[in-house]
């Protein structure tokens, strides 16, 4: 097969460019054509589905675009397909129950598209500088999306998220400034070659990593997570859990993989342990479903960080982990969305009797919980298994032991949700008012099927992940 770089580049960039175009259509066209008002969601969904439909199996080659700013490869194709899939699900959930106030749908979808463009660039960034700008393009719209309802909890969530996020960005940019003063070039390949040894460089790398850890929500950089997840519209929380975290993970891995040993790994080891321990213990005491999922998201960031220690095999596991975790978390947030009556979402107790009143929904929720807990044969089990086995092979047994123990602790709070759904009778006045949430239910059942399929038939997804991982 002859390889044509121009055709490759244009095919790879067509999807992101279509998203940019759709973003501006959503923002501007309804201003001029009254008929388009209120249908921005449909336009967005259509655009994303078209972009996804044109995804082709990427040829096995890496192409540096824009003087190395973007590295297009099978890895970027895999991650981009993942990001666009998350966007499609996010839009579907938003269509099912519009979170944006009447008249701001245009801004809502525009911001969502911008965040995803930032995510796409971040996943394929060839240097730290581009990665930082992409990080901002991802973060700023999500801050606004968190407060899009302009209600009190929403604004509080947006404010906290913005303040802590800005702090994280400040640390990243400080680190980049230090590294820029020390190294001739900030692209990852030359950073890897320029063995970072002196303490100033170490400080720079640590600052950069802590900024990315904010986005990934590793403890102690997780403070924004519970409040932001709780106050933001549930769709946006799902997006934060599935997409924003993935972007942070990819960048963290890029920086982490520059080091074969030394203090950076040691510090990251401690970050991982603290994250796994603290997040799981904190999740035990939660009563709100959204807060529970928020802490679960922090905990899963810890498990992903464990996989980092497994080298290339660990990276494969991370690439498999991201979509698996995304499916379970989007599904769980989808159930939350269907059940929620006020902005802060249902309490765990509110799920009582769901097994009787809405058995299918309860079954799907149980599947998500078991997958998040890592119960075979669901996909979450294999994700954790590959993540941990890589680290064991790398000689980090003690780390894995801690992660496994904490993961056993997590079974308790995931199981509690299931027990309440099936064992507790529904409260008497719970006349579940029927709502038109067909699309949200479709998303939930699609995710449940995905969690099941990616577990029972994990080979194809894992093969894709392995192929993508080679192009790092």
């Amino acid at each position, binding site marked *: 097969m002859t390889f044509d770089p121009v055709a490759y580049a244009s095919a790879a960039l067509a999807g992101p460019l279509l998203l940019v175009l759709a973003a501006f259509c959503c923002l501007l066209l309804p201003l001029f054509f009254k008929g388009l008002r209120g249908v921005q969601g449909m336009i967005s969904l259509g655009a994303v589905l078209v972009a996804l439909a044109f995804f082709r199996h990427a040829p096995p080659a890496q192409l540096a675009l824009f003087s190395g*700013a973007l590295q297009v490869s099978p890895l970027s194709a895999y991650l981009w397909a993942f990001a666009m899939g998350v966007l499609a699900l996010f839009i579907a959930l938003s269509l099912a129950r519009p979170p944006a106030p009447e008249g*701001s749908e245009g801004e809502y979808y525009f911001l969502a598209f911008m965040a995803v463009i930032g995510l796409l660039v971040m996943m394929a960034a060839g240097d730290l500088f581009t990665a930082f700008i992409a990080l901002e393009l991802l973060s*700023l719209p999500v*801050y606004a999306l968190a407060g899009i309802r302009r209600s009190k909890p929403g604004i509080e969530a947006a404010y906290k998220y913005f303040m802590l996020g800005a702090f994280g960005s400040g640390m990243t940019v400080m680190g980049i400034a230090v590294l820029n003063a020390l190294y001739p070039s900030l692209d990852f390949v030359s950073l890897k070659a320029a063995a970072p040894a002196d303490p100033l460089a170490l400080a720079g790398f640590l600052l950069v990593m802590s900024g990315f850890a904010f986005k990934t929500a590793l403890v102690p950089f997780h403070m924004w997570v519970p409040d932001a997840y709780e106050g933001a519209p549930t769709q946006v929380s799902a997006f934060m859990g599935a997409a924003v975290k993935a972007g942070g993970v990819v960048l963290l891995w890029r920086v982490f993989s520059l080091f074969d040993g030394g203090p950076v790994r040691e510090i990251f080891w401690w970050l991982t342990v603290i994250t796994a321990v603290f997040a799981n213990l904190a999740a035990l005491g939660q009563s709100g479903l959204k807060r529970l999922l928020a802490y679960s998201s922090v905990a899963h960031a810890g498990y992903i960080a464990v996989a980092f220690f497994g080298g290339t095999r660990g990276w494969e596991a991370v690439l498999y982990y991201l979509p698996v975790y995304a499916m379970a978390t989007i599904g769980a947030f989808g159930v939350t969305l269907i059940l929620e009556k006020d902005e802060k979402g249902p309490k765990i107790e509110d799920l009582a009797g769901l097994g009787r009143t809405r058995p299918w929904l309860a079954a799907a929720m149980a599947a998500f919980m078991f997958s998040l807990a890592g119960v075979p044969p669901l996909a979450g089990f294999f994700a954790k298994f590959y993540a941990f086995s890589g680290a064991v092979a790398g000689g980090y047994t003690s780390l894995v032991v801690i992660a496994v123990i904490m993961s056993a602790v997590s079974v308790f709070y995931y199981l509690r949700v299931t027990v309440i759904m099936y064992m507790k009778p529904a409260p008497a006045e719970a006349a579940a008012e029927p709502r038109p949430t067909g699309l949200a239910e479709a998303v939930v059942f699609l995710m449940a099927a995905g969690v099941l399929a990616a577990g029972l038939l994990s080979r194809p997804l894992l093969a894709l992940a392995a192929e993508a991982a080679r192009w790092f």
Partner: protein
Amino acid sequence: MIAAAVYALGALAALATLLMLFQRNPVKAAMLMLTALLATAGIYLALSAQLLAALQIILYAGAIMTLFIVALTVLPQAWRDHPARAPFIKVLGLAAAAVILTELVQAAAALKTAVRPTGFSETGALALAQQLFGRFAFQFELLSLVILASIVGAVALAAKRRDA
């Protein structure tokens, strides 16, 4: 001549900053800060770093001061001056100032003996533009999206509820 200008402008900047610190009225303080920023731009100009001087005026004296004044007019709380009561905070502030002062004095002493790289060349507007629209064109365009998304986000958050 140049040395005299640098010293005069430096003294002006230092004086304006000191006055700003002891100024209670926030608008007057902002004006004093503006003086300090402009004096700094003057130092850059005297050292024939025209681009840096222009950037200092556009970014700090222009954009950031505007932001300051807008914030002052929008937020009434900013007018109320709460001097820190806790002595601990004051000590902490003084300690931080002392650390920075020693650092600066050391850095200045080190600069006197430092050997400047011979390949040093002036960074002019042309060189910057060539980088910005050449090598970093993609990042530059991406930044335009960042700014646009921030504006849209800010408007979406600040707009009045239509149903209220």
